[in-house]
């Protein structure tokens, strides 16, 4: 089981906290909206990723389990 970040682009209003907290996986475009690199979240970054998800002021960021089967 691995995890991946996902953004609800309708909820997201570009606060940018996520890119501040987790620059390893999240960048910002020229208007301050997050760009995810799309790679699975490694074990080392998982705790920080959870905190980042919790920090989003509009709850637009989610950590999803990826089922590899």
């Amino acid at each position, binding site marked *: 089981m691995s995890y991946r970040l996902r953004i609800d*682009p*309708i909820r997201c209003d570009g606060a940018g906290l996520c890119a501040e907290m987790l620059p390893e996986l999240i960048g910002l*475009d020229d208007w301050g909206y997050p760009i995810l690199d799309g790679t699975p979240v490694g074990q080392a970054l998982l705790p920080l990723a959870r905190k980042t998800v919790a920090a989003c002021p509009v709850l637009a960021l989610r950590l999803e389990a990826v089922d590899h089967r």
Partner: protein
Amino acid sequence: MTTSTWLPPLEWLGPPADGYRLLARVPADGVARSLNEHRRDAPPPPAPRRRPRSELLDSIEQSGLRGHGGAGFPTGTKLRAVAAQGRRPIVVVNGAESEPVSAKDRLLLMTMPHLVIDGAVVAASAVGAKTVIVCVKRTARGSLESLERALAERNGTDGVDLRVVAIPPRYVAGEETALVHFLNGGPAKPTITPPRPFERGVDGQPTLVQNVETLAHMAQIAAYGPRWFREAGTADEPGTTLLTVGHRVYEVGFGTTLASILVASDVVEPLAGVLVGGYFGAWLAPAAISDARVSNPDLRARGAAIGCGAIMPLAARQCALVESARVVHWLARENAGQCGPCVNGLAAIANTFTAMVAGRADGRMAQQLVRWCSEIEGRGACRHPDGAIRFLRSAVSVFADDLERHMQGRPCAGVHERPVLPVPATGEQWR
């Protein structure tokens, strides 16, 4: 080219082996065919039962029919996904026809409403639905009136609850999650997926959203059989497709050459290019037109797709870049105001591209355009930004030499011509 008319004049085309199907009995006067006339050659569709009708699911699957709304998804697969949900589904007829250069769905609704409704009843029977909602733009008065008259003629004899809903005339309102959102009482704007409508749609029920033309084909498959359906087109892409070519509607078998369609529609002047698939489609260069076919594998190899079947030949005297810049601006303005990358990104892309076309941009801005395109793609809740970017990229690549000259301050003579690609006013209403 003929100018745009509200009801496109009809012409039929195609090798005799294909014959005309959907358009075979369209009345020459453009007045809707009545139920009595329609029933002379079209048997009544099988009424829905409590459960999905597996014989219909099999027929549709064997026919090889794919959706004619734009995505080209296999219809049989979609029906089975809805039928497999195990709860009473709802059928939504998508008659939004948002593409400004497409007229085929409107033609069917205005002249052959009973063929479309037959198809919707077939779809309902196939998946076990008892409710059919036909969605048409509020501004499509002719289609709305034709449908209301047709439903009155049928008088509830189909064993299905059939109703018509007028939707806001916005480009993305025809996107399937936007239709569902509107039917559930929200604005006609897309929602995030999952859930997809087939899982949870109108009133939370599994919902089959199917394009008008696709349903008309389904009516004929149910009436005449999948084997008959496969007699037209190719083994890989069976059947026929409607095409709107420069505001006129044609029906051809899949695999027909694009050149023969252009000849038949009186396009004789030299072309700058052909826009295939509407504003979510792509440009084909004149050199690619001679051997291109109405076939998705063939067109995809050229960076295009049939999409909604709208084909817009652009005369060489027009400036394809000015036309493209106007369309990109229009698409940018038609965003739903929801997702940051689409709202901000498409506007920036449209402005930069226009600056390049107008000779007001440098190489750095051109590079920025390329970067923005790849950053924005895939970051909307729906595919609106992706479609706009596909269109823009094809303009930049097909007309690369022209763009180079424009950027050097040497635009083509066509910039002084009156633009021909329509960019209709759509208003601000989402409800």
